[in-house]
């Protein structure tokens, strides 16, 4: 069995709201509605800023697919897209440009923090949605995926496939996505192989194929026999393929870069989310202060298993996936951090917001410090 999961069918707007559309107290929808009146489709301007090149076949590519779906749904609107926006004053300049060109709603596929707020706080009539953002405003919200869920599922497969139990991780920076991804993957692996460990190398970038390939090589040289990571592109998969080591990827189906090594991917699908957001902005129902975490089956999932993943491994990992889709939370204490401090007491569970803001690596991880 190698069929893709019917992700799109699962992904309904109803599911979206059930999956974590939360309105915080204090931001009244009524006030927001006044700020964001309906816009006619042929007058609407929809903007998207990407942190990397949309040709990365990964993170930015996946968001572009989402925007293409919006274009298909609202072909008469005008679209603005800027890729490779650095975390510098250039970001602020780009956002100001969006405002100057009359954008009604702006999506950013990364957190730009102050660089965004410098613009969004003044452009009150523009709706802003920041991916992996952490602050809200009267015209701003954030969205992300519960990537830790498929990370746990693929971690189970990794624990079953690794011979030595030494897993490697190509990371970017000591930020929550890395901490929660590493922890969830290792917890998944340890559920079937309690002695599993994970070595992390951070390369200080989300898009640096050369550094990612070097990190992958170093991890394999150190004895890791399965790689995971959180890169915007697929460079370390090519290293893994060459060295005959399985690898779990992020963002999209990139198996053609390493068909033998490819285990699965934390695969993203933003189409329903973006179409819903753009539609809400056009019909005047868009609300500020949204905190959206798309769950497994709603915008993030494991990809169809790679050709080298044995049938029993698929079955066991998918059984875990099914349980999680049914509401089971595997992130239960006792969990100690890398310094031996108990972070989650026995019997307690980590909520989605705990995972989203995670700032510590669990015991068994090396190469990361408590943030």
């Amino acid at each position, binding site marked *: 069995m190698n069929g893709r999961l019917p992700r799109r069918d699962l992904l309904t707007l109803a599911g979206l709201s059930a999956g974590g559309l939360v309105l915080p107290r204090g931001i009244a929808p009524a006030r927001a509605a006044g700020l964001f009146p309906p816009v006619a489709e042929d007058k609407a301007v929809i903007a998207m800023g990407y942190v990397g090149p949309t040709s990365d076949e990964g993170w930015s590519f996946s968001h572009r697919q989402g925007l293409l779906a919006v274009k298909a749904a609202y072909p008469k609107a005008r679209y603005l897209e800027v890729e490779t926006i650095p975390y510098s004053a250039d970001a602020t300049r780009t956002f100001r440009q969006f405002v100057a060109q009359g954008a009604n709603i702006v999506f950013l596929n990364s957190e730009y923090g102050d660089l965004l707020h410098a613009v969004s706080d003044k452009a009150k009539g523009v709706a802003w949605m920041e991916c992996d953002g952490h602050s809200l405003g009267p015209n701003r919200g954030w969205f992300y995926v519960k990537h830790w869920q498929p990370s746990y599922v693929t971690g189970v497969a990794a624990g079953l496939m690794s011979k030595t139990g030494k897993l490697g991780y190509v990371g970017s920076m*000591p930020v929550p996505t890395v901490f929660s991804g590493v922890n969830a993957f290792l917890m998944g692996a340890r559920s079937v192989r309690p002695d599993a460990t994970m070595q992390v190398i951070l390369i200080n970038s989300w898009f640096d194929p050369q550094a990612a390939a070097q990190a992958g090589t170093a991890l394999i040289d150190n004895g890791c026999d399965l790689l995971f990571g959180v890169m915007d592109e697929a460079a370390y998969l090519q290293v893994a393929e060459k060295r005959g080591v399985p690898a779990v990827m992020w963002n999209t189906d990139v198996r053609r870069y390493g068909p033998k090594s490819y285990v699965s991917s934390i695969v993203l699908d933003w189409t329903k989310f973006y179409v819903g957001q753009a539609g809400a902005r056009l019909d005047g129902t868009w609300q500020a202060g949204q905190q959206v975490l798309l769950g497994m089956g709603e915008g993030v999932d494991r990809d169809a298993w790679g050709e080298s993943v044995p049938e029993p491994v698929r079955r066991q990992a998918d059984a875990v996936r099914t349980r999680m889709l049914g509401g089971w939370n595997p992130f239960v204490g006792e969990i100690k951090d890398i310094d031996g401090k108990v972070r989650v007491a026995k019997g307690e569970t980590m909520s989605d917001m705990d995972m989203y803001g995670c700032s510590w690596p669990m015991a068994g991880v090396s190469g990361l410090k408590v943030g």
Partner: protein
Amino acid sequence: MRFQRLPSIGAGVMILARVAAVAAALLTGGLAFALAGFDVPELAGAVISASLGTAFGLEDLGLLATPLILTGLAAAVCLRIGLWNIGGEGQFYAGAIIASLVGLQLQGPPALMLPLMALAGFAGGMAWILLPALARAYLAIDEIITTLLLNFVAVLLVNYLCTGPMRDPHQAVTAASAHVPYEIPAMIDDLHLGLAVAVLLVVLAALALGRTGWGFEVRVAGANRHAANYAGMGVRRRLLQTMLLSGGIAGLAGMLEVAGTVHRLQGGISNNYGYLGIIVAVLAGGAPIAVLPAAALMALLLNGGIVLQSYGVSSYDVLALTGLVLLFIAVGEQLAYYRPAARPAIAPKPAPPLEHAR
């Protein structure tokens, strides 16, 4: 048809060559964009109206030009004494580091803290060029290599500080320091006072280099070190002073970026301003006052790039277009020295072979 090279040309010819070069580059680029299916007149109109036609666009140009003026001035100052400071990037980062540390560790009224941060930024840039300057002055070690290599050290230092001791754990996707609470006041709307500071520094540097005995000594040392030495001008000291001044100016650019626009120390804050400053200085022909139009042109190109991107031009095409403009300017500058020879240039007579003195 023959051409002859003139030993020097007038400023008018040079300006004409620059304008022609930019026009030729834009035509070439425009042709390529037209072949790729873009509506070039629309794109050109958008760039011009977005950059020059609105207050917003002009503010953006000013914001972008501020660091470029300073890093350009830093490189130009060094060129006056015949040295290449390729380390503007590193000095920019060093200035940003020290200024952020001061802003985060000390507390006081902004009227005191901002000048203090500016001094700290200047000192940081000076500290970062100190080693190359001493090595140049006392050991005659090529400053191009030493200043360049220290750029990479500075980037790594910033990354270390931002992921380690200075890290703000609330940043989700990039490593950055905590928010620096002191902000440079705005002149107009979003345009902060840094631009005025940068322009003032250019004027001061132009006066110091052009109108003072010190500046004369620097220029003589740049033109002919041995002659300057022979005239007892203290070349070594001028060399050290000029390099430290250059580093300090680049460091101040780092401080302005922290306190003016980004408000945090983070990797990538330099936005390549250090390297772009070298291009600005070359475009300015090393003359401090010419740094102003050169930085403005560079800012226009970079800002135009952002506008083009929002019209669907890929960021790589924008980079290529910027490179094309600079290439044409460099070629145009050389071509400006040539004029068609009225008649075949007289070939110099071969010198008679030297007779060996016995």
